[in-house]
């Protein structure tokens, strides 16, 4: 019997449906569940109120990241509310037998960095976490997306959630990326084309030469920001790059289990002729280093361009004007040369070793601009150790930068790392919403190369001008 051609997404989704409810969602089985301190406490309270147990404690992994300080992590956390949340995660994990990498643990770091780097994230899995950037794990050919706290409680108590199956979108990017154009630029470009809501209701597969040639770190950066165009998630078919990345990581399968898993993983690709609900094709040559100028990630453009007019940008004029007003920008302004105050490199979007290598490649032999405050925050302790081993630490120090300790930090400004009101920050994170990086903060999203160029010049600068 010949099978209908299926997409990668169909293959993984359909293999996880425990029950289909007529005119309702699918009961959807979850292979891996990540939890952190902010979105889990109320779920655990719910379990207690209903007197439920955790059904499969070995499928859930806890790490503290959103609310942790990025200096002096050896000292007690000074904010009592934050300390209380961290304590709750520790207590709940211990109580229900869930593995917990808290503050000070050498495996600790941002949930979407530590999952992959420890081999917890694998192809063909379904992965959820109470954090929208769970889409990151799609880089491995997993179906991964963010959930709310009620759903965290569902996964804890039954290892399932109720999900309607999203529609399927294919995004092809072919050709070769130019000098200074990184995975972050590719995804910011796609979001600018599709808008911040353009993929709502869809699950994306990224395909084409650009993604085939991309490292796992780069693929994670791209999948991470799928949510910024409204998609539930995005995924990339696993290939030799994926398998090489996973092999030998602590929790990855080994020996016979590896061979068996590998044979399965190799079937995880979209069949010839499989149908998508919508397809977009982009050319690598059209993508230059990107920067955002507004208050949602869809308000981005090539760094050498001028801010579009409301009419050219589309959407409501009032909302557009409100946004530019918040940013202190005007239609037709050039972004190049605008003075900036802060630089943040880090987050689950760009807090991996490759990102710090890129940052250091520009910073090397230069000095931090005097008026710039830079927060350099590795995604995990493992990344931090790599930064030191590879000599990046020395390059940073010589240029006048300091390395902080791992955590979400200024990505969401829940800890003390807040950009002050009115200040401009070039940030490698994923959201430029009003107040995201601190009340009144003005965020320009960009790649680690653009962040580095701004950090040494003090103004928005095209990194291609600084690359030898």
């Amino acid at each position, binding site marked *: 019997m010949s099978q209908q051609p299926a997409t990668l997404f169909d293959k993984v989704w359909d293999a996880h449906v425990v029950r289909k409810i007529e005119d309702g969602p699918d009961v959807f089985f979850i292979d891996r569940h990540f939890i952190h301190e902010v979105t889990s406490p109320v779920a655990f309270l719910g379990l207690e109120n209903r007197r439920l147990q955790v059904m499969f404690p070995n499928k859930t992994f806890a790490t503290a990241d959103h609310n942790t300080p990025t200096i002096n992590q050896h000292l007690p956390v000074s904010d009592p509310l934050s300390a209380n949340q961290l304590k709750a995660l520790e207590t709940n994990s211990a109580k229900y037998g869930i593995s917990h990498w808290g503050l000070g643990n050498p495996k600790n770091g941002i949930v979407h960095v530590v999952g992959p780097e420890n081999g917890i994230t694998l192809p063909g899995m379904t992965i959820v976490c109470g954090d929208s950037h769970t889409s990151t794990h799609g880089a491995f050919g997993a179906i991964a997306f963010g959930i709310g706290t009620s759903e965290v409680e569902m996964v804890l108590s039954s290892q399932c959630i109720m999900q309607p199956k999203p529609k399927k979108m294919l995004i092809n990017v072919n050709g070769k990326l130019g000098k200074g154009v990184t995975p972050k630029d590719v995804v910011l470009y796609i979001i600018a084309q599709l808008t911040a809501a353009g993929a709502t209701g869809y699950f994306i597969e990224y395909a084409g030469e650009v993604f085939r040639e991309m490292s796992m770190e780069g693929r994670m950066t791209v999948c991470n920001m799928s949510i910024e165009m409204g998609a539930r998630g995005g995924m990339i078919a696993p290939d030799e790059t994926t398998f090489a990345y996973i092999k030998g990581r602590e929790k990855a399968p080994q020996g016979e289990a590896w061979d068996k898993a590998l044979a399965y993983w190799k079937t995880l690709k979209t069949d010839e002729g499989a149908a998508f609900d919508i397809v977009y094709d982009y050319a690598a040559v059209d993508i230059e280093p990107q920067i955002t100028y507004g208050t949602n990630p869809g308000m981005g453009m090539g760094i050498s361009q001028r801010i579009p007019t409301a009419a050219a940008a589309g959407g409501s004029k009032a909302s557009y004007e409100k946004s530019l007003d918040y940013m202190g920008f005007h239609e037709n302004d050039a972004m190049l040369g605008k003075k900036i105050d802060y630089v943040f490199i880090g987050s689950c979007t760009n807090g991996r070793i490759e990102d710090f290598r890129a940052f250091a490649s520009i910073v090397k032999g230069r000095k931090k601009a005097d008026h710039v405050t830079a927060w350099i925050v590795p995604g995990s302790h493992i990344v931090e150790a790599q930064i030191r081993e590879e000599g990046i630490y020395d390059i940073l120090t010589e240029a006048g930068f300091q390395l902080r300790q791992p955590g979400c930090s200024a990505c969401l*400004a829940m800890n003390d790392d807040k950009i002050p009101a009115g200040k401009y920050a070039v940030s490698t994170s994923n959201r430029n919403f*009003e107040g995201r990086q601190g009340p009144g903060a003005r965020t320009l999203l960009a790649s680690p190369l653009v962040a580095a160029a701004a950090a040494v010049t003090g103004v928005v600068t095209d990194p291609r001008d600084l690359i030898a």
Partner: protein
Amino acid sequence: MAYDKFTVLTSTAVPLPIENVDTDQIIPARFLKATERKGFGDNLFRDWRYNNDDSPKQDFVLNNPIYSGKILVAGKNFGSGSSREHAAWAIYDYGFRCVVSSFFADIFKNNSLNIGILPVQVSPGFLDKIFLAVEADPKAEITVDLGNQSITIAATGESESFAINSYKKHNLMNGYDDIDYLQAMKEDIQTFAAKSIY
């Protein structure tokens, strides 16, 4: 957490004609430090609602006493951004039971349904009609009838139907939630899990 049943809601509405209202506006991250689901309504739209010195911003709609009610009407792409259910909690805790928009972000829509808020997606044209009706008369009432899947502007009698799957509709009308459903099928889940290679 159990919630009140939702059947028919007739109420005045609070208009927020802004597009792309994201979850960081609905509830900024610095208010997510609680370990209990309490008091989030006080910080709903915190930075639009209050100045730095905690005095209310006069021009924000929640501070305008002529508007009130259990229905929030917002511009398109409402609830984009983070998965924080706290955003839906804040809206519920403030007293809203229904959010109307021409477009919702996925996770926000799911979270709302899971805690007993009904997200009603209407056409852009009907959304404008609601904004106009409320602007003309802040006491204009809107009726949301879940059983009939219809939304009506009382003053003009204009009405539109909205979509919701029958499973979620049944849950909302009876105050059931997904956890009850999943608990009742634990055996099937156990059997399914036994076959998993992970």
